[in-house]
């Protein structure tokens, strides 16, 4: 009999890392399908291309670090990063853009810090932010949703040519791309909310931005499935969405031309639901205790609203998540749970005087 010296935790979850990662990918499927239906084949092509790069980078780094390549690839974490990046990037992001972002995410944001479990920042979000600050013009090439008058959905071949321009074809980006609903609301300074909804095609959805609302609802469904399978607890998503709701209620600024948009608009626009269920729930770069997760999520929600309402970027989830990633160790320090049978730790307070 082998006596293995073990330290806590002695009880582990039933799910292995690779199983959890597979579940996350499965849960992202409805979001991917709706995005493809709404914005054409671009995201789908990007997903395959980004997955190839992510797996290639992961294998390369594992080789460089003299680690077993197959073991690293089998935990599927590189593929999850690839899925998140593909869903976050604009559908027609050119091949070199995704190449840079994905390789940076895997090699620098994940493996330079020690690989899965050691990275202080969410790799997919680091890749996204790198691209956002480096190539701002290419990161706003969002397409109008299917059914927008005056626009046609791109065919598979057209999308392929847009992503890999050397395959021929010359698309005029200005003619096929359109500002997203979030951009429209931020740039607006003259129209009231109801006028915006009536005149601007991007805002002509049933509840919120056209197309985006269904994408977000699909992510919400996937997230609820993960919650049901106990892949993560409810704290971080509830924290983020709750904070976003409170912020958009308090700072809505009426429904005139100064408005920052309704609560439902913020919940169902941009990357809100993708962030709430697939990104702030990252077990590595987020806070670890339940109370900590609640605070972490709330911080992300507040920052998302602040950047959306008063910032200068198309969406805010990536920046908000990175900023809160930085704060996660501090949150953990102050929210350490009480050990069973012990008094509350007096962390962060002055030591009691010697008696």
């Amino acid at each position, binding site marked *: 009999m082998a006596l293995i010296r073990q330290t806590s935790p002695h009880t582990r979850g039933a799910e292995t890392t690779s199983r959890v990662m597979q579940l996350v990918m499965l849960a992202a499927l409805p979001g991917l399908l709706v995005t493809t239906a709404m914005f054409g084949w671009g995201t789908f092509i990007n997903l395959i291309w980004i997955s190839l790069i992510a797996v290639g980078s992961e294998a390369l780094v594992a080789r460089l670090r003299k680690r077993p390549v197959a073991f690293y690839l089998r935990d599927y974490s590189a593929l999850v990063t690839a899925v998140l990046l593909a869903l976050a990037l604009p559908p027609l992001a050119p091949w070199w853009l995704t190449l*840079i972002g994905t390789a940076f995410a895997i090699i*620098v944001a994940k493996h330079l810090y020690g690989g899965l479990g050691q990275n202080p920042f969410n790799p997919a979000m680091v890749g996204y932010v*790198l691209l956002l*600050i*480096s*190539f*701002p013009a290419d990161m706003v090439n969002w397409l109008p949703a299917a059914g927008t008058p005056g626009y046609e959905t791109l065919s598979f071949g057209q999308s392929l040519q847009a992503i890999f321009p050397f395959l021929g074809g010359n698309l005029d980006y200005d003619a096929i791309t359109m500002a997203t609903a979030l951009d429209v609301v931020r740039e607006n300074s003259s129209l009231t909310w109801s006028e915006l909804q009536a005149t601007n095609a991007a805002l002509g959805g049933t509840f919120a931005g056209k197309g985006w609302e269904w994408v977000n609802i699909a992510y919400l469904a996937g997230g609820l499935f993960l919650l049901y399978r106990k892949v993560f607890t409810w704290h971080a998503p509830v924290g983020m969405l709750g904070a976003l709701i409170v912020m958009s209620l308090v700072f809505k600024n009426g429904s005139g031309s100064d408005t920052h948009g309704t609560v439902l608009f913020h919940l169902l626009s941009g990357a809100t639901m993708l962030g709430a269920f697939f990104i702030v729930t990252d077990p590595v770069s987020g806070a670890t205790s339940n109370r900590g997760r609640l605070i972490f999520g709330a911080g992300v929600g507040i920052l998302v609203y602040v950047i959306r309402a008063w910032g200068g970027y198309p969406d805010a989830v990536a920046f908000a998540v990175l900023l809160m990633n930085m704060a996660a160790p501090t949150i953990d320090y102050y929210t350490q749970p009480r050990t069973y049978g012990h008094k509350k730790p007096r962390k962060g307070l002055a030591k009691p005087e010697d008696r």
Partner: protein
Amino acid sequence: MASPTPEAREITLNGLWNNNPALVQLLGLCPLLGVSNSVVNALGLGLATILVLAGSNLVVSLIRHQVNDAIRLPVFVMVIAALTTCVELLMQAFTYELYQILGIFIPLIVTNCSILGRADAFASKHPPGAAVLDGLMMGAGFALVLVVLGALRESIGQGTLFANMHLLFGPVAKSWSVVLVQDYKQFLFAILPPGAFFFMGLLIAVKNIVDNRISEAKKATQDKPSTGSKRVRVTGTVS
């Protein structure tokens, strides 16, 4: 004055590699990261730093017996500030455009920790000759890292190399600019401050790799059993 003055070879090696102000001491990072976005900016600040560093080391070494220990730091800072002002005036006279681009970083040479550090740690304890050499070599080590960082960031960020060198060397240098990639899309990350930290980290990593290789190679040659020995080994294993 207690430590013996090191030899010229050692001073040179220390400044350029073993004790490089930018890669090992990590001093003066503010200007290093701030202006290393192109070769011309990097070289301009690097030359200015060499001048100030060598000059301040010389002056500090000359007055080292007269300065009271208690007030040595303010005195050194005054010396450095005076020399920085000289360099600033020189740059205003001869390379005015570059002076405008580098802006606040030229007066900020005063606060470059590596200069005060060398004045206190080396120049105030050693004769003028060694002090000047130390200043030159430390400055050269700093400038070298600055230029390499500038070249990396300029080529990756803008796809050019040696652009605008005429700001430093006059009209002759106008043709030095090399366009590495035609129609290059600017990679802003490399030009912005985060890129400076990133490439600086890579440079430090490369230096550590090289150092590890060198020490491993040294170890290997030391461990090698001497082939000239005629004694027969009867116990143990030959590795």
